[in-house]
Structures are given as C-alpha cells and as structure tokens.
C-alpha cells in the first residue's frame, strides 16, 4: 500500500509539474508567432523585441518541459510496469506519433531561437509556426492516451489478455475529442492570461509603455478567446463523462443518490460517511439539464456502483469546483476586455482592469491542475477504467519513497530556479522612461 501511495504521489507530482511547462510550450510559441507576424506586417520593431523576449522565456521553460517530459516517459515504466505491459502496444501509436511531433518541435525551436539573423524573416516566422503547431499536436496526442485510460477501446479482453489490438481505434477513443479540445484550449487560456497578468503588472507601474501594451494585447487575444470558449468545451467534456464514466460524474457533482431532476451543486462539501453533500448552493434539476439536456433525466449517484468502484468524492468534487470557479472568473475578465474593446476599439488600461487581469493571471494554471485531479482521481480505483486497477499496476520495486523524495526535491529546486530566472527577465524588460541607450535595447 505505501509503495502504491509513493508511486501515485510521484506520478501526480511529475505530471503536475510537467503540465505547466507543457501548457506554456503549446501556447507561448503561438504568441511569439503572432508578435513576429505583427512585426513583419507593420515593421514596428517593438513587436520584434517582444517576440524575442517571449522566446527567451520559452527557451527556459521549454528546457524544463523537455527534461520533465523525458522523465515521464521513463516513469510510466518505472512506476507502472504492469500497466505499460498491457497498454504499451495499444496506446503506443499515440506516443509514437507524439515522438515525431516532439522532434519537429525541438528541431524548429532550435532554428527559432538561434537563427534570428541567419535565415530570412519569413523562414524564421515559419519555424515558429511549426513549433506552435507541433506543440499543440503533441499535446493532443498525449491526451489521447489519457482519454484511452478513461474510455479504453481498440482491443478485446479475453482472460485478462488484450487481443484484436487496433491502435488507431484506441487513439480515437470516445473521450479523445472532448479531452483534446478542452486541454488545448486550457493551454491557450492559462498561458495567455498568465502572460497577460505579468504585463498588466508592468503596465500598472509604467502606464504608457508601448512594449507592454502590445504584449498585453496579444496575450489577452490568445488567452481571452480561449477563456471564453473554455466553459463550453468543459460542458461538452462533462457530457462525455456523464455518458462514459458515470461514477466520475457522480463524484464531480457530489451526487450520492441516484435521482431524477438532480440539482447542480455549486460549492459544498461532500461527506463520504454521511453520504450527503452539504453547504452547497443547489440549482434544481440543473445537473440533469447540463448532463443530459433534459430536466427529468435520471442521474446515477455513487450508490449505483459497488463500494470498491467509487472514486474519492471530496477531492474530485472540490477540484471540479475549483476548476469551474477559475473558468468562470477567467471568462469574466476576458469578456470585460472584449466588451470594452468593442466599445472603444482600444484595449482598456484602467487600473481596475489591469488589477483584474493580474489577479486572474494564475487561475488558468490552477484550473489545469484541478482539472487533471478531476480526471485522474475521478477515475480511481482504476488506472484503465473498468480494465485494470491502480493497485495491480504498480511496480514491485521496493523503496519508492526515496525516489519520490528525490524527485520532489529536484523539481522543487527547479521550480524555484525557473521563477528566479523569469523574474530576472522581467526586471530587465524595457521601460518607457528609460534613457535612450536603454530604449535602444528594444530594437536589438
């Protein structure tokens, strides 16, 4: 048991760490490309400086994303050998194609970062576009694997052995589209708002700085559009979960009893012993409508499933509430930007707006962590829904706590260093009131 716990904690910690860098690795290249495209079109050198500045951040973050991803691909076997023995052939196609996406991403990232003055500007821009596209593609492919763990398809189970293996069918599992869409939007929303928040903070000190204004504009455009779409794609994801993983839905909603006209609970604390969710704001029939588009639909509660097949309710419900709350707040800030841009054709730079953007800045990453907690913990006790239990999958190697402790210390240290290096980058960012010598740095 304790070995299992160590393995889970290590997996959760490694993925929770990697996903931040992965999300940024998907979205930041897009933002760099937009900035560089603006430079190519307008000739305004500030855009070029912006693209270069973001590229510096991307280089630091990408390095950590790449090494933590490398660790993950080994950890699948180091921690979950039985799972991989079963799943490897079925899901390998997704990982294999992902390998090529990584390759193109890494190759053209090298070109993008190091060849500013070596190749013609359109070729340089194209390299960035390839990085952005292959980053998104690699995210989609790896999420297909997670979708397969949630809704396994593409094989027939005979006496615990997978036969009739059909990797393309496994790739196109029922949860694939909803998860891939939701995760890709999440990456743009979270990264866009994260970056927007940084520039908003800078603008509060230095209101007219053209560099940060342009940066805020691009970051908000990318993050804002995604943030407005995200709740819709989340709704779609929830409907897929309702259909394919009813125990997870019940846990997400803190729904203990099976009932018609099930209410939507906002907030609240599920009590697994008393089998009720108290303190929640309940919207009558809300859940039935959201999950099945019908106020009279029956929602299966946790009581519909054997006790040893129920996920931990409290964690899943709270994580889900956190994600939705973050999503709503992010959408509100984005709508604020959209509406005032509509009315004035100008990006708002009032103090209140900048403060709101700065406050919303970390919400996307929090939502991503919470969302993965919903997905992963909500699937428990299964590592492959309905096929293999997490307890069966874990390695027999003793002493996993050492490994967990070592990696946690390593990643904690890396996290601190990354934050320090990024802060250093922000501090050296161009200021509007800087002396002429300084300002020239914008154009270099």
């Amino acid at each position, binding site marked *: 048991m304790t070995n299992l716990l160590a393995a889970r904690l290590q997996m959760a910690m490694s993925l929770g760490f990697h996903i931040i860098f992965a999300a940024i690795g998907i979205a930041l290249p897009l933002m760099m490309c937009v900035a560089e495209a603006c430079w190519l079109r307008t000739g305004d050198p500030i855009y070029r400086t912006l693209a270069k500045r973001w*590229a*510096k951040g991307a*280089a*630091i973050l*990408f*390095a950590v994303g*790449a*090494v933590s*991803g*490398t*660790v993950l*691909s*080994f950890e699948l*076997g*180091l921690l979950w*050998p*039985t799972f*991989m*023995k*079963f799943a*490897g*052939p079925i899901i*390998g*196609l997704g*990982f*294999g*194609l992902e*390998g*090529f996406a*990584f*390759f*193109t991403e*890494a*190759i*053209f*990232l*090298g*070109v993008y*970062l*190091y*060849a*500013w003055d*070596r190749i013609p500007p359109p070729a340089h821009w194209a390299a960035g576009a390839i990085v952005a596209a292959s980053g998104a593609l690699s995210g989609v492919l790896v999420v297909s694997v997670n979708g397969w763990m949630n809704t396994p398809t593409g094989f027939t189970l005979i006496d615990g052995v997978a036969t009739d*293996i*059909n*990797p*393309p069918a496994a790739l196109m599992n029922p949860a694939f589209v909803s998860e891939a869409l939701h995760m890709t939007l999440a990456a743009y929303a979270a990264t866009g708002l994260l970056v927007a928040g940084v520039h908003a903070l800078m603008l509060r000190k230095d209101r007219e700085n053209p560099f940060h204004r342009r940066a805020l504009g691009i970051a908000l455009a990318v993050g804002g559009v995604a943030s407005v779409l995200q709740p819709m794609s989340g709704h779609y994801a929830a409907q897929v979960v309702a259909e394919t993983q009813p125990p997870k839905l019940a846990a997400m909603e803190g729904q203990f009893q099976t009932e018609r006209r099930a209410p939507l609970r906002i907030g609240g604390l599920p009590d697994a012993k008393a089998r009720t969710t108290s303190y929640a704001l309940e919207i009558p029939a809300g859940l039935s409508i959201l999950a099945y588009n019908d106020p009279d639909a029956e929602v299966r509660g946790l009581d519909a499933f054997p006790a040893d097949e129920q996920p931990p309710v409290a964690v899943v419900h709270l994580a889900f509430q956190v994600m939705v709350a973050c999503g709503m707040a992010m959408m509100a800030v984005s709508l604020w930007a959209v509406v005032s841009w509509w009315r004035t054709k100008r990006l708002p730079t009032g103090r209140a707006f900048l403060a709101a953007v700065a406050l919303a800045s970390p919400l996307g990453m929090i939502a991503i962590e919470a969302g993965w907690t919903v997905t992963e913990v909500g699937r428990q006790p299964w590592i492959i829904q309905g096929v293999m239990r997490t307890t069966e999958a874990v*390695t*027999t*190697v*003793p*002493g996993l706590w050492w*490994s967990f402790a070592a*990696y946690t210390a*390593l990643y904690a240290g*890396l996290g601190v*260093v990354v934050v320090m*290096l990024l802060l*250093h*980058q922000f501090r050296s960012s161009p200021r509007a009131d800087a002396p002429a010598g300084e300002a020239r740095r914008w154009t270099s």
Partner: protein
Amino acid sequence: MDFLTSMTPAGGVAAAMLVALIAYALLGGADYGAGVWDLLARGPRAEAQRELIAHAIGPVWEANHVWLIVVVVLLFTSFPEAFTVVMTTLHVPLSLMLIGVVLRGSAFTFRSYDATELARRRWNRVFSIPSVVTPVLLGAVIGAIATGEPGRVAEAGGPVPLFSTWLRPFPIAVGLFALNIFAYVAAVYLTLETDDPALRDDFRRKALISAATLGAVAWAVHLLAKDSAPLVYEGLDRASWGAPLRYATGAMAVAAIVALALRWFAMARLAAAAQVALILWGAAAAQYPYLVPPHLDLTRGAAPAIVHKLMLIALGLGSLILVPSLVYLFRVFKGHTFRAGRRDEDESVRPTPA
C-alpha cells in the same frame, strides 16, 4: 544479407531502435562528451573551450536528445515485456540517470540566461558533472542487460534487487566505455567547430588521447565479457560476420587516428562516427535476437505483429517530415563544419540564443 529478406516486422522495429540508439550516441552522446570536456577544460584557453562547446551544441541540443525518447517509445510499444523487465530490474540506475538528464538539461539552458558570471559558472558545474555521470549509468544499463542478470531476476520472480543487477564490474566497465566513446566523438567533432588553430589543436589532442583510452577500455570490456556476458561474447565469435565486423571497426578506429594525426578533420569525423556506429551495431548483432537475454527475444513478450507494422508505417511517414527537418537544422547551424573554405563568413554570426 539474408537478414533483409527474413526480417519480420518485429525485426524491422528492432532495427529502427538500433538506428535511433546509434543516432543518440552520435548526436546526444556528443553533447554528453562536450560536457566532459567542459568539466576538464584547463589551461589558458579553458574559457575559449567552454565558449566553443556552448556555441556548438546550443542549437541542436533539444533535437539531439529526442532520439532517446524515440528508443523508449519504440521499446514500450513494440516490446512491452522487455520494457517492463528493464524498468523494474534496473530501476535504480535509470532513476539516477534521469536525475542527471534533468540537471544537465536544465542547467545547460539556465546558464545562458542567468544574470551574473558567478551564477553562470555554477550552472556550468551543474551541467558538466552530470554529463560525466549520466553516460556511465546509461552504459551500465546496457551492459547489465547484456549480462542476462536482469532477465534472470525477472524470470525468477520474487523480490526485485536494487543493486545486484547492475553494480558489477562488467556493467560499470560498459558505462565507462560509453563515457569514453562520447568524449571521443565530441572531441573529434569540436575540431571542426573553430578556426582558431590553437583551440583546434586542443581538441585534436583530446581526441587522440580519448582514442587511446577508448582502445584500452574496449579491451577491458572484451575481457570481462567472456565471463560476465557470455552470450554476447560468443555471439560475436559465433557469427560469420563477427570477424569482418571487428576488422571494419578496427579499420575505422585506425583511420580516425591517422586522419587526426594528419589534421584531416572532416575525414576523422567520418571515421570516428562510423567506428561508433559499428561498435553499437556489433554489440546489438551479437545479442540478436535477444532484447533482454536470456529469455526475451524479438518474439517472446512482443506486441502483436499489427502493432509492429503500424509502428513501421508511422516511422516511415514520420521520417518524411523528420529527415528534411533534421537536414535543414544541421545545414543552418552545422553547415560551416562541412564547407572548409567558407567558414569565415559563417563564423561572423555565431549562434547565440535570442
């Protein structure tokens, strides 16, 4: 050439894995080796040597290490049981190796972006020390697999030992061999990265020294293999191609040394790369058809043929994108090492990150 006609889809995937491993040794391996020379940089030109190393590997760094991921993905997809056995019985060296990968991978980038000279120097250490340790562990894993001990432990079931599968003379010797190979190819490549005759001679000397030590370590590995990895040892002797392969490897080694001595650096690079590829090819061929001896070969515990076929298709289609992209990358950043006459104009725009 009967292996070509008799090649099964599983054999095809195994061959692709070998190709990826060789590419990793020749490209990613050289990055490790460069880290070794960074650590060992001494004398009046120490700073210049470090500078040269950083400029040489920066642009290709991220791409070079993806080869390792390709090997891992192909292994767990196509030979899941072999993957499971390796990941279980060699848990400790692999975990330590990954820590090395993380440290050097992040430190390499961090040092370009940190503020002070002192901080940069510290990151340099965090980059170069794991560059020495990690290849030893990587080699030890490969050497341990060749001994058959991990395979036997897994077959027997029971508790998994943490150290006895790999903390032995033969795997460690293979680890040192890997380290030496990487340092050697790195030194050879670096001779082509500079116009400064003194700097080039520094790396030429390092290349010659590491060529000599490589011979010595290879001899030690060979001696140890007789008892520790009999299967591989005999595999090389048994096969009809064993002797020609060894002569070819030896010939390449001699060619590389002669070319270095005569300062034909492009030729030396070609010969050294061929030598390393032949070493790995020979080792793999000697172990053939076993992935994890003495039980797991290309058929036992492998994925169904459909998976192998799909992987081969995916590899084929992927290569259509990958190969031109790689060629482009190396043309942009390594073109100057192939065009002796035109190096000056390239050198004026040394690659530095944005």
